[in-house]
């Protein structure tokens, strides 16, 4: 059948990109909305637990502040802030079961925090000490992938492995709006559909891929692609931690039960620069930023607590204390980090002996020895 009548696509673009078209539980004003589909998935989340999610978000935002400061002080080479995306990361990460595996991109520091990755391991890469800094098996979270989209295929392979093991864990893979243009991300959806892999495709549509607005990548909502591959999709307010948690739980549940992949588009916003090296004023307007600041994922929770009368001094103090202590630990961990050993440049290339590389190592050692005694 003819699926679309002949139309001028540029005319319709504007409506298509209307961002209101998503599910939500707590709006920007902190008002709680009912949504029968989502509600039952977070029925167990008490206000106390919501306060814990709030704490996570505040802490993660504080980590960003600290890291940005450390970068300015020259302690870090670079840092990719997730400012604005706290709800998307915390809501999804806190929905995970312990045995669910995470395949992240480079911006999922909030997710890593939820998995108790040591704080100094969050910065080791950005301090230039390592390319990756934790054992994925220990934290059920892979080390960050910098090549856009690559990790989505790893998620499918891992998920197929999970099924072959007879286990019922899920895999969640994080990627951005820009990443949806890469062949790999599309192939991952195809492979996941073919193998009914237990994968949650979690796209943080933060509206920008460095300087490129999402409309350059997608003429329609990103979430509209997956169904064509046979993958159900959910478009959720990514600044609403509760809705994100509900959506992620739905997707995880499908995966756990053998229902296959699900795609989640979390509509959020990168309020900071792409990385500390970026200057977003070159490509985006102050108005746009202001508009999204009004939808801040953290302040809306504060409003919600306020309205409910549970934004107590005690809660505020507790959260502040936690953020302060994490920040202090984070700073110290960064500054006290021990430089890698010179000769470790040759380590972990391969497991089996490589005589050509060993010769290079030995010759370099001889070369360095030459300088000994010199000054």
């Amino acid at each position, binding site marked *: 059948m003819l699926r679309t009548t002949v139309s001028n696509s540029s005319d319709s673009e504007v409506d298509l990109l209307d961002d209101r078209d998503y599910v939500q539980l707590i709006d920007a004003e902190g008002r709680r909305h009912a949504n029968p589909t989502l509600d039952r998935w977070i029925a167990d989340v008490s206000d106390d637990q919501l306060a814990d999610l709030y704490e996570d978000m505040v802490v993660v935002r504080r980590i960003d502040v600290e890291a940005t400061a450390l970068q300015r002080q020259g302690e870090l080479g670079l840092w990719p802030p997730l400012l604005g995306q706290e709800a998307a990361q915390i809501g999804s990460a806190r929905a995970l079961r312990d045995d669910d595996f995470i395949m992240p991109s480079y911006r999922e520091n909030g997710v890593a925090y939820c998995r108790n990755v040591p704080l100094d391991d969050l910065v080791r890469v950005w301090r230039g000490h390592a390319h990756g800094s934790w054992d*994925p098996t220990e934290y059920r979270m892979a080390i960050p992938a910098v090549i856009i989209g690559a990790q989505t295929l790893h998620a499918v392979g891992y998920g197929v492995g999970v099924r072959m093991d007879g286990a019922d864990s899920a895999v969640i893979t994080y990627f951005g709006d820009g990443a949806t243009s890469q062949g790999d991300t599309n192939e991952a959806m195809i492979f996941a559909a073919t193998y009914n892999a237990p994968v949650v495709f979690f796209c943080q549509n933060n509206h920008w891929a460095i300087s490129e607005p999402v409309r350059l990548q997608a003429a329609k909502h990103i979430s509209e692609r997956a169904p064509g591959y046979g993958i159900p999709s959910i478009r959720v307010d990514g600044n609403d931690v509760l809705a994100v948690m509900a959506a992620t739980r739905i997707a995880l549940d499908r995966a756990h039960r053998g229902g296959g992949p699900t795609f989640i588009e979390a509509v959020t916003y990168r309020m900071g620069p792409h990385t500390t090296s970026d200057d977003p004023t070159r490509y985006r307007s102050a108005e746009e930023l202001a508009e999204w600041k009004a939808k801040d994922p953290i302040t809306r929770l504060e409003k919600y607590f306020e309205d409910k009368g549970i934004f107590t001094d005690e809660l505020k103090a507790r959260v502040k204390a936690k953020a302060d202590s994490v920040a202090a630990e984070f700073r110290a961990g960064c500054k006290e980090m021990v430089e890698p050993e010179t000769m470790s440049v040759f380590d972990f290339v391969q497991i089996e002996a490589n*005589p050509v590389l060993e010769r290079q190592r030995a010759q370099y050692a001889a070369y360095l020895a030459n300088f000994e005694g010199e000054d």
Partner: protein
Amino acid sequence: MTTTTETTNATATATGTATLTLAKSITAGLRRSMQDDDKVILLGEDIGKLGGVFRVTDGLQAEFGTDRVVDTPLAESGIIGMSVGLAMRGYRPVAEIQFDGFIYPGFDQIVSQVAKLHYRSRGAVRMPITIRVPFGGGIGSVEHHSESPEAYFAHTAGLRVVSCSNPQDAYDMLREAIASDDPVMFFEPKRRYWSKGEVNFEPEETLPLSRARVVSPGSDVTLVAYGPLVATAKDAVAAAADDGVSIELIDLRSIAPIDFDTVAASVRKTGRLVITHEAAQSGGIGGEIAASITERSFNWLEAAPARVTGFDTPYPPAALEEHFLPDLDRILDAVDRVLGRPNSLSDWED
């Protein structure tokens, strides 16, 4: 995409010895690896019911099931990327790339993920992935079906790159590649798929995967080949012998890392080196061998190492491939050159 109808009829573990084609010795190696370790799974295009376009996986899906012999969607990056995820989960994926020229859509996953994840994770992640690639020309096929991309991978730290030249090596090397915790690019000389040889299924001792083999000792010239050209090189050894020239033939087997100890020991004996491969000359493995051996054994060299290789052109149409491919006569001409005997370049001036 020629096919062979021969089948091995072993379903139990193969024992003793048998005469097999090189293709079927790979089948046997795959089967044995799958029997020995149920984490070994195969994936690729058309490897299931069809048994691959070369029938190398023939019968394996019937024997091991669709979970262990997995037909994939038509996407090489997907095949490799999925292998990476499987490896992270503890599997030992053996990915088949249908033809050499189709590996490039998977290049990023190979170079940036398969090769680097162990280094990136400071040893926490292992990538025991074997990527099987039928490679090389001489089969009269169309474009993209006759390429020799091994040098790209040999220049990529973190990958082991090997090629086999005979049925026994195919069987042994494949098993070692699959058992290795490192990623291995396994290049299969497709035009030798139908050449036969004795295969001992349970050899007492095998030469380690990273070691070159001295195929035949000699004293005048060292000739280095790998994969499909080892057979051609053997012919050259015989022809030269008739002419009173003693060639030491080395089957490189491991293209990365290269077993320079074995090559250098030979060159220190002969003083002369000829290297042959099908890949284009510029940036090929031959240059690396010539440079490294010159570095290590300059004082032993009587002549500049000579390379007999494909030209710096794309692989040509089938009607012209005989000109592109190194053959007996071109190798002998280079042997004459390093020996200072009359040869096609005797009058050449640079």
